[in-house]
């Protein structure tokens, strides 16, 4: 009976507390809050882990996707937003209306890798035009076999695997290859989990798919990468080296973090964190499977960040910009 009473009291306390607390205690702890892209997540997680060890300042990282991340960022719920694509005009406007200005910081490259089945002995090299032919909306229901892509390819059914429409990877691929954002044929197998795409492509001889380099590196025994023709007409395989020297294009894409400019200017913890991020981004990016910028480029980005120059370099959508070009464009805004 005594125990029963205790239980009752604690239940009452719990219920009472749920109604009285909300206003007073939220915002008590100073935590650097990050949210956004699942692609950028591993880098932010790695930096957060090391930063917290080094300074004891708390950091949390969420995984709402690039779009979801920006929504929270523009509501002022997070200080930093991970993004696997540049901010869109609509999102930038949402931030502006909420009175939040942002600093755009590129942190690393990801090389979108086009992969085929191990049994595919014909498509070692493809041009962007051929990729477009496979993936564009007009191909739906029409381009169904490899021999329609290039004369000489076998009559093997073409099976397409790609990330779903919510992903920044998808946005970038359509912009780079189809030259129109989000335009793609509807009859392909989509999954938000790249490991599912790996399974799909490795299980079908006529399959082709694309995703970030890290997923290819971990599954080299199951898949082959395709060399894609770059702007200079050369066929280049994706790798850390070819991405760093700029020869792997147009499928090398930059990853970003967006920083709340007010917080960056006034909050000492946020300042410390961003400095730490930029100092370690290269090392961490490499460790989790992305491609770092050069040291000079990180130095230039740090300079850019310290000037607290807000806005994006991507007011007009652009593909294949170097870090230097991104910073110049961003600095030239307004």
């Amino acid at each position, binding site marked *: 009976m005594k125990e029963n009473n205790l239980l009752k009291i*604690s*239940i009452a*306390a*719990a*219920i009472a*507390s*749920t109604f009285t*607390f*909300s*206003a007073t*205690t*939220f915002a*008590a*702890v100073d*935590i650097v*809050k990050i*949210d956004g892209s*699942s692609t950028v*997540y*591993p880098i*932010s*997680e*790695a930096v*957060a*882990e090391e930063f*917290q060890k080094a300074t004891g300042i*708390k*950091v*949390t*990282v*969420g*995984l*709402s996707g690039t779009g979801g991340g920006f929504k*929270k960022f523009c509501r002022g*719920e997070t200080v930093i937003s991970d993004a696997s694509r540049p901010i869109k005009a609509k999102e930038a406007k949402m931030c502006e209306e909420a009175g939040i200005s942002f600093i755009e910081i590129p942190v690393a490259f990801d090389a979108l890798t086009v992969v085929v089945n191990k049994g595919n002995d014909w498509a070692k090299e493809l041009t962007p035009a051929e990729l477009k032919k496979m993936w564009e909306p007009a191909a739906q229901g029409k381009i169904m076999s490899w021999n329609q892509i290039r004369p000489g390819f076998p009559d093997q059914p073409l099976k397409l695997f790609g990330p779903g429409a919510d992903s920044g990877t998808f946005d970038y691929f359509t912009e780079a290859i189809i030259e129109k954002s989000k335009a793609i044929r509807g009859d392909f197998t989509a999954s*938000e*989990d*790249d*490991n599912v795409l790996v399974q799909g492509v490795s299980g079908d001889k006529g399959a082709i798919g694309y995703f*970030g380099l*890290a*997923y290819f*590196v*971990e*599954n080299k025994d199951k898949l082959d990468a395709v060399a894609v023709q770059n702007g200079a007409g050369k066929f280049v395989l994706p790798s850390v080296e070819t991405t760093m020297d700029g020869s792997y294009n147009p499928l090398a894409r930059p990853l970003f973090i967006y920083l709340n400019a007010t917080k960056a200017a006034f909050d000492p913890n946020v300042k410390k964190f961003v400095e730490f991020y930029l100092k370690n981004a290269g090392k*961490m990016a490499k*460790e*989790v*499977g992305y491609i770092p910028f050069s040291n000079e480029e990180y130095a230039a980005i740090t300079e850019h960040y310290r000037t607290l120059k807000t806005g994006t370099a991507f007011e007009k959508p652009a593909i294949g910009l170097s870090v230097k070009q991104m910073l110049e464009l961003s600095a030239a805004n307004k």
Partner: protein
Amino acid sequence: MVKNKKQPAVIKDLESIRAMIRRHKRNDLIFAAVGMFVIASLTITLLVLFLDLILDGYPRFTLDFFTNYPSRKPEIAGILSAWVGSSLVLLVTFFVAVPLGIAAGVYLEEYAKKNWTSDIIEINVSNLAGVPSIIYGLLALGLFVYAFGLGQSILSAGLTLALLMLPIVIVSTREAIRAIPIHIREAAYAVGATKWQVVYDHVIQYSYGGILTGVIIGMARAIGETAPIITIGALTFIAFLPPTPVTVDPPFLNFEWLSSGFTVLPIQMFNWISRPQHAFHINAAATGAIIIILTALMNGAAIKLRYNIRKKIKW
């Protein structure tokens, strides 16, 4: 005379009756076999999945796995923040859903007048039990996170899962109450007990077993929920624990943890399974196995408790 005349017919019928009995026995057998097959295939599927998770994840069943924070290095990454988060969220869920659910069940069964309002409530409760959990997540995002301003906190998550669990508790409470023989009530009223005395001293006491089962099955469902928790904005990387609920100084209870950010086991698993490195997939398998073990333990506890309580009750 009449009897004699009919006898041959009965004897003739006997054959057909025996044939009918044989046929029915065969049907019985077929049904039992089909039933066995269905149960066996379900159990075997679960066992195979579970074994697969264990075989993949067993290298990570170490103490470190439970005491380490998540990390970019799969071999030192652990589920400390996830299991603490899961426990605290479930604690909130328990303290909200159980009293509310039992009270609602008792009210509907014992007090509510049987009219169209209670019919509507009844239909709604049964329907709510089948609503996809993501819907609860969206409701909670609008209501708890923004309208009430509770933020992306343990409290919001606990309340969300409590909503999810409420219908289960209500339905099982009502069923447990209905199982109590009417003469118990009548006996109590006969010696002059008030309605509340009957409800509190008899109805609730005797239906504990059934209520408890519902509560634990509801909790077991809640522990594996991912969608609504992601919707309200659970974190993924969090390398610190919320403030402890129990303190050494008076008043001994601390409620700051309610407002803390958090992650839970299924989200940690989801994050690891989508990483490129195979070593993370091992971590995910280990986490999955742990979730299944926890669910099985909870269900086991429900069965054991129900058995013990039923044994104690003598009508």
